[in-house]
Every structure is written in structure tokens, then in C-alpha cells.
């Protein structure tokens, strides 16, 4: 009985492996054909030789790549200190919007206004207004640093989005969980901290991953107010060498970071979907 079942699963697995191999071969062939077409057709376009020289110049890439990597380190640093601030502020705003007591109405209004404003304005505008506006007050060093105010602009904008995601996570926890916690004698705060938030946060991890990926890219917007991060550095090289290849190099560096993280976020999302079923 047992052994026949094993045999059957073995046969099924063999069959499915064969089918997978077949579809992999078909996919490989069609991809190769598409690539060949691109490889043959694109160079036939009238401007290709010029584009190739100014965007895909191997020598320029090799020369500028190490410096681009150095500049990318600045992106990573700005990202690294912004992300925790965003997580904390986002959570606080979400909690503020979720308060029940009438006395805390101003807090709810503040939370709602905050999210409306910072989700309603393009990030680049917020970066400009805060990044130029506040140092424009003539503050002494180091309080005129674009790092501080650029970071603030990113933190404010992203907190608004992150807060909304946390809030949807809090709402996704079944109402009975709160009732169960309260019925045990826990206070509202304890119910939130020990019962609702841990579940809410877990539910929104994939969505927040996507916010992190977006943030990693938007750090480049700070280049407009001063910091020489990777985009700005690529711009400097472009002017120096009259060649666009550094931008392509910068894009490649971004992709190396963002593609795996996007894949990972998708994987988490899919796993969560399966768990829900």
C-alpha cells in the first residue's frame, strides 16, 4: 500500500520534471530568438553607432565604475539612517490615527493631515522646499547641512506612506483579537502592543519591503540639494567626459541592489498569500 503510493509520487515527479524541462527549453529558445532579433535590428537603427559610443562605452564604464561605487556608499548611508527613522515615525503616525479617545481628536487630525499632505506632494518638491527652505533661514553650521534637511524630507514623505501601510495592517487584524485581549483584562494599550501590533507588522512586511526599495532609489533625489551621491557623481562624470555611460553604470549598480530585493519582497508576498488560503 505504502510502497505503491511512493511509486506513484515518484512517477508523478518524474513526469512533472520532464514537463518542466520541456517548458524550460521552449522558453530558452524563444528568448534566444528575441535576443537575436534585438541584436541584429537595434544596430540597424540610424543613430545606433552614436548611442553606442555615448551610452555603452566600455572604457568609460571601467574608468568611472569604482568612483560610482564609492558614491553609492553615500546612498546606502542616507538610506540606512533614514529607514529606521521612517519606521518609527510611520508607526507613531499610524498609532496616532488609530486612537479612539475623544480627548485625542487633535492627534487624529494631525495624523490625517500629515499623511494627506506628504502623500499629496511629489517627493522632489518636498526635498526642494525643505532642503532649500530651512537652510535658507540662515542657520549656523551644522544646521544648514543638506544631509539633515534632505533626510528630513525623505523621512516625512516616506513616513506618510509607511503609516498608511501600518494602519492597513492594524485594520487587517480581526476585531475579535482586540475583544479577546480586552476580555482578559488587558488595557487598550496592552492589547495594541502585545496582541494587535505584532500581527499587524507581520502582515505588512512585504509591503514595507517595497517601500524600502522605493526609498533606496529616491535617496538620489537629494542630489538636487547638494550631496554628491551616485546620480550626482554620474552627472559629474558625464560633464567631464562628455559621455552618458556613467549613468548606465549607476543604473546597473541600482539594479544589482533592487532586483534581488524586489524578488525577495515578491516571494514574501506570495508566501503570505499562500498562508492566508
Amino acid at each position, binding site marked *: 500500500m505504502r510502497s505503491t503510493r511512493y511509486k506513484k509520487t515518484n512517477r508523478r515527479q518524474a513526469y512533472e520534471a520532464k514537463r518542466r524541462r520541456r517548458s524550460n527549453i521552449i522558453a530558452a529558445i524563444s528568448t534566444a530568438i528575441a535576443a537575436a532579433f534585438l541584436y541584429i535590428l537595434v544596430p540597424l537603427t540610424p543613430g545606433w553607432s552614436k548611442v553606442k559610443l555615448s551610452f555603452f562605452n566600455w572604457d568609460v564604464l571601467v574608468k568611472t565604475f569604482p568612483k560610482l561605487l564609492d558614491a553609492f556608499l553615500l546612498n546606502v548611508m542616507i538610506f540606512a539612517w533614514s529607514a529606521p527613522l521612517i519606521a518609527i515615525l510611520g508607526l507613531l503616525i499610524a498609532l496616532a490615527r488609530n486612537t479612539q479617545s475623544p480627548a485625542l481628536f487633535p492627534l487624529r487630525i494631525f495624523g490625517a493631515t500629515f499623511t494627506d499632505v506628504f502623500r499629496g506632494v511629489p517627493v522632489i518638491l518636498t526635498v526642494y522646499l525643505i532642503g532649500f527652505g530651512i537652510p535658507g533661514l540662515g542657520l549656523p553650521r551644522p544646521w544648514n547641512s543638506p544631509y539633515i534637511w534632505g533626510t528630513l524630507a525623505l523621512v516625512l514623505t516616506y513616513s506618510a506612506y509607511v503609516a498608511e501601510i501600518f494602519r492597513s495592517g492594524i485594520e487587517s487584524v*480581526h476585531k*475579535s*483579537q482586540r*475583544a*479577546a*485581549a*480586552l*476580555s*482578559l*483584562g*488587558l*488595557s487598550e494599550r*496592552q492589547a495594541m502592543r*502585545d*496582541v494587535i501590533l*505584532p*500581527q499587524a507588522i*507581520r502582515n505588512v512586511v512585504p509591503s514595507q519591503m517595497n517601500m524600502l526599495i522605493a526609498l533606496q532609489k529616491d535617496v538620489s533625489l537629494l542630489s538636487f540639494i547638494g550631496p554628491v551621491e551616485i546620480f550626482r557623481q554620474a552627472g559629474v562624470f558625464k560633464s567631464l567626459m562628455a559621455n552618458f555611460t556613467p549613468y548606465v553604470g549607476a543604473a546597473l549598480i541600482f539594479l544589482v541592489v533592487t532586483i534581488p530585493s524586489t524578488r525577495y519582497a515578491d516571494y514574501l508576498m506570495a508566501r503570505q498569500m499562500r498562508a492566508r488560503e
Partner: protein
Amino acid sequence: MNAKLQLKNLTKSYGKTTVCNGIDLEIEQGQMVCLIGASGAGKSSLLRCINLLEDIEEGEILLDGVDISTPGFDPQKVRSRIGMVFQSFNLFPHMTALDNAMLAPRRVLGKTRAQIRPEIEELFHKFGLADRMHQFPNQLSGGQQQRVAIVRALAMRPEVMLFDEITSALDPQLVGEVLDVLLMLKNQGMTMVLATHEMAFAREAADVVCFLKDGQIVEQGPPSQIFEAPKQNATQSFLARALK
């Protein structure tokens, strides 16, 4: 002598719909009271009011003769004396069964894990859950989950337990193990109020049965009276359908 729990003219409405309409009920220490009635009759609402999960508009809820429904009365104090188990989604899915049961004693009573663990482990043993303590809710059957939920409520050493259709979401073969736990509690002298669709159980185990309709207690009495000689037409027709 005072009743353990006494409801006087308890009235609660959501907007225009009155879900508890002048409920009067006396529950003696150690009694098991079963609330029966069609879905929407107001059984859950009544239990939620007793546990102060809902504010009431009129009436009194006396626990040991003290009105706990007066505005300003600390609901947390009351809830740690009255345990409640719901139909479903009781357990906290991110904690093991043991942590579920230890949370309230730790947070509300300020005990340490070490202080309460022996007592709570004993509860798990007593209710046949010794080998389930370290599992997460999603690793437990529906019946085991409900039993853990009962253990968790008992961990607060409540004086009264409220049960809201705790077997309604279970597969039929799992209902028995949960009802057995209720019988154990009754034998230990726990005061209990339960909303239930298990008519056979109510008939066998209840001291008092209340038939609710449209937020009112239409008829109450010992099970022999309610099930064998109901006086009201509404009770008769409900039972005719429920016992079919």
C-alpha cells in the same frame, strides 16, 4: 443572600435597533445559565455587555452586589474577574498556547513567567493539553484551540465565565471535547453563562435556560420546564425548529 451576578433591566441598542431590551436575570454562585435563541436574538450582545465590552444605556449589572456598569468603573478590574471565550479567533496566533495563557497574568497581575508557569502548566495538564503547550494556534485543532482559550481565561482565576457559542465553529466530532471541559468547570463550581446552540447539552447540564428573542428574555426556567413544557408560543416554535 446576594446572587453572584444579577442583571436588572439591562438595555443596550445600536442606533435604533435595541439588542438587549430590559433583561432581568439572577445567577447564583456555581450555576450554569444557558442562553438559547435564534441567531440575532441578542445572546452575544448580552454577554459582551456583562463583560463591559459594550456600554449599556439603562439598567444595572451587579457582580457580588456591586454595580459594575456605573460609568467610570474600571472595566479592566471587572474583566479580570469575568472570563470570556468567543466563537472563534480567540487565540493570539503569534504566541504559543502557553504564552497565550501567560500573557494576561503577566501584564494585568504583574506576575513573572516563573511565578505563574507551574499553575498554568497544571491547567494544561488538567484539560488534556499537556503536549500542546508549546504549539502555536495554527498547529492545533479547532477543539484544542477552544480548550486553550478556556485555559487562558482560567489563568486569570475568574469568578464567572462567559462563553459565546464556543462550539459553533467546530467540526461536529470536536464539539464533545469542548463540552466536556464545560462540564468539568461546572463540577468545580464555576459560575457560567453560555450562549449555545447545543440544545442537548443545555438540557442536560444547565441549571437555568433563558430563551431570548429580539433582545428580550421571553422565558426562563429550569431546563425541564423550558424543554418539556414551554409556556410561550415563541419558545415552542423555536424549540420545534431547533430540536428537529
